[in-house]
């Protein structure tokens, strides 16, 4: 059990000094953007963490009330800017749910390829930045080296490296270029063995384990209570992934695909003989497990992309033509959550029968994930705060919208 300030057995904590309020952020190297955490500290011990958000609020929902769904796609890019593709996908699917649109087979597989590449790119940043949070710089650059190659692929597919607007309502803006899948496969072949290096550098590193094991333990009950999602809940052992358990319009995208939902079941991760063992110190739901889940999800994504490329070549038809820019939407309301890299990203749309929606809604996964941070950080040390916040892997663009 980590030392907490309430622990009566620890005598040192009785010798309290004056409490100090410290602002961690919004300009701070480890707050993943412009997050401001107000720490109430007693020496090195943090007794309370209060997140203050909104520094990156860009009124995305209000803007959406004045644009047609396809015009709003670029705004979704700027939510989780590390996984723009997945944001595009979430919003497109939400509108398609309202339209009751059926995507052609080829477009479905294309979306799987792109979404899983996006997940890999995002998890790579998550991994690298987590290294930074813990004071090691090199894994960050290794992660970016690989991420660059994913971005190169994206650039070739859609012309952009950060804000793609590639997947759109009705399919994708363009089909994959000729020869793209070969490059993608070549990248996967190169990338897969490299993951072992990351495990050596971080996952199994003695200091890394010391810094993350038993830190910020999130119980499954608390995870559900706070509406956490994605790797954060799966790190707590909750077997839930929208790709498998979501709404039909989303799960049908992954129909026929073989993949595992990464979470610990009966003390084992899927295929865990292939990965470094869980260290003895680690407890389910701590920072280490959240990190580990991300690392293993990358491997699942590789498998998914391989299958998807095969399916993509086998399938015929179009990649899904985007709907007309000013297409009238049916009257109604739709809300759909998809499994973005950071968790369940929900998009909602209220339509009154016009081309422009009455109201759009973005439910951010990081928003709920960050809300649990004050609970996790209570009584930890200052150095643990970046460790915990980093393991939640929040993106402020998505939280503030």
């Amino acid at each position, binding site marked *: 059990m980590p030392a907490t300030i309430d622990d009566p057995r620890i005598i040192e904590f009785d010798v309290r000094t004056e409490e100090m309020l410290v602002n961690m952020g919004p300009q701070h190297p480890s707050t993943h953007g412009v997050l401001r955490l107000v720490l109430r500290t007693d020496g090195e011990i943090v007794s309370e963490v209060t997140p203050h958000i909104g520094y990156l609020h860009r009124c995305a929902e209000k803007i959406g009330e004045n644009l047609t769904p396809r015009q709003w796609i670029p705004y979704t890019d700027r939510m989780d800017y590390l996984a723009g593709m997945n944001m595009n996908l979430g919003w497109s699917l939400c509108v398609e749910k309202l339209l009751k649109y059926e995507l052609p087979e080829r477009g479905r597989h294309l979306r799987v390829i792109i979404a899983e590449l996006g997940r890999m790119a995002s998890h790579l940043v998550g991994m690298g930045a987590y290294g930074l949070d813990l*004071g090691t710089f090199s894994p960050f650059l290794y992660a970016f080296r690989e991420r660059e190659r994913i971005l190169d692929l994206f650039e070739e597919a859609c012309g952009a490296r950060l804000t793609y607007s590639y997947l759109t309502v009705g399919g994708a803006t363009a089909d994959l270029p000729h020869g793209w899948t070969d490059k993608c496969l070549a990248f996967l072949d190169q990338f897969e063995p490299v993951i072992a290096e990351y495990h050596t550098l971080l996952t199994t590193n003695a*200091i890394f384990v010391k810094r993350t094991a038993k830190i910020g333990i999130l119980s499954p009950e608390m995870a559900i209570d706070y509406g956490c999602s994605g790797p954060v809940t799966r790190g707590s052992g909750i077997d839930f992934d929208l790709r498998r358990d979501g709404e039909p319009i989303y799960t049908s995208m992954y129909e026929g695909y073989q993949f595992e939902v990464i979470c610990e079941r009966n003390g084992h991760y899927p295929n865990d003989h292939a990965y470094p063992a869980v260290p003895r110190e680690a407890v389910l739901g701590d920072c280490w497990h959240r990190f580990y889940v991300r690392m293993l999800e990358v491997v699942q994504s590789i498998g998914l992309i391989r299958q998807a490329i095969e399916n993509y070549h086998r399938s015929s038809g179009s990649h899904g033509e985007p709907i007309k820019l000013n297409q009238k939407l049916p009257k109604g309301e739709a809300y759909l959550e998809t499994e973005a890299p950071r968790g369940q990203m929900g998009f909602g749309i209220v339509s009154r029968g016009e081309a422009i929606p009455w109201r759009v809604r973005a439910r951010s996964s990081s928003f709920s994930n960050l809300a649990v941070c004050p609970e996790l950080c209570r009584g930890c040390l*200052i150095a643990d705060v970046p460790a915990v916040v980093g393991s939640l892997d929040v993106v402020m663009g998505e939280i503030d919208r």
Partner: protein
Amino acid sequence: MAEFFNYLLDCGAYALSGGRWSVAPDNLFGVVVTALVQVIILLHVIAVGALIFIWLERKVAGRIQDRLGPTRVGGKFGWLQTLADGIKLITKEDLMPAGADGFLFKAAPYVSMAAALAAYFALPFAGSPLPFVAQQLNVAAFFIVAVLGLEVFGVILAGYSSASKWALFGSMREAAQVVSYEVPLGLCAVVPVMLAGSMDLVVVGDTQRGLFTNWYLFHDPFTFVVFWVYFTCGTASVNRAPFDLAEAESELVAGFHTEYSGLRWSFFFMAEYGSMFTVSMLAAILFLGGWHGPLPVTEWLGMQADGWLEYSTSPGIAAYLCNLIGMTNVVLKAGLLVTVMMWARWTLPRLRIDQVMTTCLKYCTPIAAVMFVGAAVWQAALPRGLMLRTPLANIAASEPWQRGAEPVVQTSGIAVDKEAR
């Protein structure tokens, strides 16, 4: 050296006065001039050393991280990059927070720098017959370990006077950490001192002459362990990763130097690189045979003081040459250790403050203490050790106090207590 300057003065005085005035060899003039010359040389050793090490660090980091590092400034390897950075730092505005304690804030970098500089005064770069050292102290090992600990004052001052909470956190961490690590560091440094029977680093270095098997690293299993403990503690005491908690950029923004900019900030850096090198030099002298190469080539060639090209009573050219080789040896060894520190920095995550303290108090200190006792018992029971000794190394193998004091050329006005050795 003081005698040399006094001799020059004496010659001048003699010529001017027509033989009526003379200057005694221990005149204060020589001492002052010598001190000035030494200060200037050492300042440059630190400044240029820092330039080289920062460049090296960037190159090493670049290679570790699968990139090139600096490549442009100064030609092929970007070897002037640090100088360019230095010029940039000089031109930067010297900022001070409104709430800062002005005098202390401005003084802090100099305090750090002075402490780092002071350690160099007792640091020998080559040994007998012509010790290449600014001040050959008979308590050099003790002096350096003590002075290294002084650097923390600058850091504490910086944190205290910055009027920044992050800086305060950083300096408090540094204070706790450095004060704790002084204990195991001292315990480790004492082991070779005990084996050599002297705190004079020149003597400690010279007792390891001969094959590399004579290095105290290989003296016995205890010293072998002690070296690694020393290196860990040394890394911690100069605030290098994974013990760089005082800076901890992911937690404390930049720790104690959060509020510093420009030249003052770079002084902290020079101090850091300076003490990094000092700690590595100390390790090289105490454990890695100092200025003696792995093979005693100079001895084989008879390049010691009594060797060839000797004339009259002063040391021969060979001795100077021998010193040059020795200096290369020791600087290379220390540089290697510095590189290892860099390697660790760019590979390992940072420890947490409680883990740093645990490492020190629960592991390093007890291990160092046990190894100290072990080495002492070993020395008493098996003075010659079990390691391979070559006939060439008979000087080192014999006990220093039985060996008879070797002629040591005095380099300054401060008398060296030869009886103490």
